């Protein structure tokens, strides 16, 4: 039996802007298996971030259901949703979204504070995670004192703080140069292969293609097609080393 972590059922999201209604998602049905690396691909404005928000319980769908680990997200209480965000998902954003008043270390410990982990344990774990992303020597720097790539590493370490089963990444390389972007992708891929974390990443970065198990092409709020790894490899050959 397949182990489905994420399942969306006819997910629709509408944004109301004055008298206009914008249908950002127009009935999305996808199933994602545990341990997969999924890329949501599509041009800007196609609805990737909106879908990211629905899967990560950062916003509610207008219609349809999202199931995570078989649990219908619309049936959770406020406290359960907070616990879900805290324990089950790690979020990585295009603009890093670090708290600029907290050091790298302080950013990584915050989700653990929310989880009620003891101070000693969270310091230990934060150090381990920051070491892992290669920031062992920058632990107490404020985000403003770090480069874009380093900030994204902090965000990755923070996303892993409470050992989530899913990592959601919304265009994690869009603000980075090609080489740094490549490093970030490799780091995320490593989590996926070494720790079995399910990765769902919105992107239009072609470098993401060859690390993905499947690619979900999104266009105008609809799933246009889903490509498997074997179908991708041929195309990667065609695109070659094309970057941003």
């Amino acid at each position, binding site marked *: 039996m397949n182990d489905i972590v994420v399942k969306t059922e006819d997910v629709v999201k509408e944004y109301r802007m004055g008298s206009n209604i914008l249908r950002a998602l127009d009935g999305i049905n996808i199933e994602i298996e545990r341990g997969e690396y999924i890329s949501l691909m599509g041009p800007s404005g196609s609805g990737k971030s909106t879908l990211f*928000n629905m899967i*990560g319980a*950062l*916003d*509610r769908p207008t219609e349809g259901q999202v199931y995570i*680990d*078989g*649990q219908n997200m619309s049936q*959770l*209480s*406020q*406290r*359960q*949703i*907070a*616990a*879900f*965000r*805290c*324990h*089950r998902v790690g*979020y990585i*954003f295009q603009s890093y*979204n*670090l*708290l*600029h*008043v*907290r050091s790298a270390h*302080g950013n990584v410990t*915050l*989700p653990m*504070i*929310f*989880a*009620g982990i003891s101070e000693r344990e969270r310091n230990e774990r934060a150090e381990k995670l920051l070491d892992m992303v290669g920031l062992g020597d920058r632990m107490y720097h*404020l985000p403003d004192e770090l480069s874009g790539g380093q900030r994204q590493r902090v965000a990755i370490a*923070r996303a892993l703080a*409470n*050992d989530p*089963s899913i990592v959601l990444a919304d265009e994690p390389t869009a603000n980075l140069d090609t080489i740094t972007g490549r490093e970030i992708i490799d780091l995320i891929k490593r989590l996926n292969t070494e*720790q*079995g*974390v399910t990765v769902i990443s919105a992107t239009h970065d072609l470098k993401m293609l060859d690390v993905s198990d499947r690619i979900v092409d999104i266009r105008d709020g609809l799933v246009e097609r889903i490509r498997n790894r074997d179908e991708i490899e041929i195309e990667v050959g065609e695109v070659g080393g094309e970057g941003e």
Partner: protein
Amino acid sequence: MQQRTPIEEQIDLPFVESLRISFQSLKIRFGRSIITTAGITLGIAFLVSVWTNNEIGVALQESGRQSTINTFEETTEQGISTKDIWLIVMSLIVCVVGIANSMLMAVTERFREIGTMKCLGALDGFVVRLFLLESGFQGFSGALIGALIGTLGAVLLGLKDYGLDLFFYFPLLPAQPENGPMQLGVIVVILLGCILGMILAVIGSSFPAWRAAKLPPAEAMRTEV
């Protein structure tokens, strides 16, 4: 890594933890915190100076002294001129609007931070508590400094108007003259100024913080300031 157990309920943070987070935030954003606090200080300084000035005026009138400067406006039977009432009301309004505005600005530029904290598992209540603590501290310290500055200003003005007589009749404590209005005294005015500043700061900050905390994180994080 296998997490098939039902989703648990998020726990509340211990108070000390919230306190630490709020103080750290104030410390690192020191420059910005000072500006916000200065807004409170100015509002309260204005209010307290006008008010104390009025207390001094009334006290010295009670004592039978006259200002060396001719007061040419109508005085009511109670000894408070309509101009004074007008001034106090105006300074109160300036104070309320000024503080509410600086708190609102301070919270609005932190919507993204609020959304991010919710992504990491913060409960709405925690977000509100954080802003309550920060603004309560800012409100109290800003208002206290403001009240002292305001009093000093009023005393200097009083010295100019009444000379050293001011200190003989200085309305430090509450008093109830036979045929006059209740006088609050400068100490009570300072206290009221501090309390008012703190309450305004707390309301001005927790209300927008509460609204932001109730937004879905996706929306809170969209705001660019």
